[in-house]
């Protein structure tokens, strides 16, 4: 083992380092995708997916009869995608709005999971905790060997997921941007916004399962929604919004861990709270923040735009919820 590898190993063997790294990776993976969810007004899909996961786990248990199977990850991801598909189906009926559709689908799937447990598995310790660890404080205990290093299992998984998400966003940046801001134009240009949307939400599902195992449900939902929202308050350019989101996620992981140590509280809870602190700071101090707004009240306000030509600007005005729902396909 070379000296560099040994040094890296010594560093990784500290629980604190592994915990902060896992938190940061979950934060980056989640906020990269979360930025698009927030802009598409689909942030609550992350919450919906995290509930539907139980159905996937129950189904796989009923099919295989075991709680120890990698198939659970596949089942959970499929359940997440199923949520997205059913929501889409409802929205396309044009009878319900998107947020209502989300609210209709995931309680139904979650309830189905609970009923299945009641009927077929009432005496098995069956729930998401039984299959996914969901506690960042223990993630460092579970180690796998990767090349020459002993790495926490969640760290390895989340690193892989983060790289996939990063590649997805970088390679399909143009498509994602257009599908998010102007699905009509994206279709006209042959960019298949629906397919891009499913790719995005498929990755959200996979990330949700990975993040669930590593850090638990609430922290995942917080990382999907809060850092991008805070970043959105700081900038109108999509590229910067993505970068700021990642930085806020990293800061939340570090700050949250320090907070948890200082007060001896749940690490996941402290990290989620730290994202809230960043949001508060952005709300007060950001470009569109309360302080800036008070300052700018003397001068006429410039129309907001998020790195797109003026043609699509009316849809981007996320602060007026009624204006853009009609524009979504």
């Amino acid at each position, binding site marked *: 083992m070379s000296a560099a590898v040994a040094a890296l190993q010594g560093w990784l063997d500290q629980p604190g380092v592994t915990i902060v790294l896992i938190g940061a990776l979950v934060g980056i993976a989640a906020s990269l995708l979360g930025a698009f969810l927030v802009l598409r007004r689909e942030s609550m899909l992350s919450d919906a997916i995290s509930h539907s996961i139980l159905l996937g786990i129950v189904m796989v248990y009923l099919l295989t009869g075991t709680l120890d199977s990698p198939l659970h990850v596949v089942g959970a991801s499929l359940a997440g995608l199923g949520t997205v598909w059913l929501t889409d189906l409802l929205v396309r009926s044009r009878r319900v709005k998107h947020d209502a559709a989300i609210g209709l689908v995931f309680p139904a799937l979650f309830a189905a999971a609970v009923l299945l447990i009641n009927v077929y598995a009432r005496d098995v310790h*069956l729930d998401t905790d039984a299959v996914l*660890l969901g506690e960042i*404080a223990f993630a460092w205990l579970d180690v796998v060997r990767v090349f020459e290093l002993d790495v926490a299992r969640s760290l390895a998984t989340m690193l892989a997921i983060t790289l996939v998400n990063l590649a997805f966003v970088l390679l399909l940046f143009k498509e994602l941007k257009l599908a998010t801001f102007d699905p009509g134009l994206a279709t006209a240009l042959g960019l298949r916004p629906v397919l891009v949307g499913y790719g995005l939400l498929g990755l959200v599902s996979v990330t949700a399962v990975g993040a669930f195992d590593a850090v638990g449900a609430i922290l995942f939902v917080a990382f999907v929604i809060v850092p991008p929202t805070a970043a959105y308050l700081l900038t109108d350019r999509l590229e910067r919004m993505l970068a700021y989101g990642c930085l806020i996620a990293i*800061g939340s992981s570090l700050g949250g861990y320090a907070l948890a140590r200082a007060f001896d509280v*749940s690490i996941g809870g402290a990290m989620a709270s730290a994202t809230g602190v960043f949001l508060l700071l952005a709300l007060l101090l950001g470009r569109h923040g309360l302080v800036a707004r008070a300052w700018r009240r003397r001068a006429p306000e410039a129309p907001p735009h998020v790195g797109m030509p003026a043609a699509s600007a009316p849809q981007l005005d996320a602060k007026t919820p009624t204006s853009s729902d009609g524009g979504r396909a």
Partner: protein
Amino acid sequence: MALALLVASAAWPTSAHAQAEPAEAASQPIAVVATTQMVADMLTVVGGPCAQVTTLMGPGIDPHLYRASAGDVDRLSRAELIGYNGFDLEGQLGAVLARLGQRIPTLALAERIAEGVQAARLLEGEDEYEGETDPHLWGAADVWALGTDVAAEVIGQLRPACAEAAAERARDYAAQLDALHDWALASAASVPPTKRTLVTSHDAFAYFGAAYGFDVAGIEGISTESEASIADIRETVELVLETGVPAIFVETTISPRTIEAVQAAVRDRGGDVTIGGELFGDAMGDAGTPEGTYVGMIRHNVGTVVRALGGEVAAWPDALAGWKERWELDRP
């Protein structure tokens, strides 16, 4: 944000020191972390001065819903021995601890006890558990007593100097637990045969029931995620009316609402049933109280059940006179 990062990095060095210092000095007590209070009790008693035991899941905590704090990370990283129950009581954490065994010694106490128990005593396969072993082995004191040897063996391996004393304490404690078991049997025998039905919130008392002769009906089943259904409650109500059992019981780790619902439904149907008291199912009582020890927990559970169901508690065994004296002396 730069400021926050600065603050965070200032706090960073503290985490670097969290790393375990291999304190192998043979005179130091073993740093033991136990998940549940039952496991902690066993390792504390058998370890004596050789073990410094901390418990992760305190009184009133459903092991299933436990959330770790940052301090738990430190305690685990400094641990020389991690004791846990096993058989999925701790959910996925148990699986992680089982894999951890190669790096830090771990002890799955209930699983090790089960190896020594005759297969006939292990509860599985009934409609309660499909192919999996019921993790609540501590319900029967004579079964739990088998853990004394296991604990002494592990402690002896970690501190050879302590091996003899630990084995001695294990023998003493096993004798006490056997006396406790006989006392529980004698107490339970006083309950009229028609009233030997134990209705509780969830299925944590299968071993208790099998050992002391009660038919156990847990309303919720094993998983606490799928709460009690209307059918569960109705079935329990039927059972209460049919058997005419005078009391039903709540658990310290579970909301009493379902049991109260059963009581209300029984009264609506013209029957009557009282709530016989609180039982310690998945956790023991507060540290520093008699119920914070294993002996005290069993004493409380047996006493509560026997008295509520019309029996009479037997005389406290001489072998445990010391225990009783210690706790009553400590009381104001």
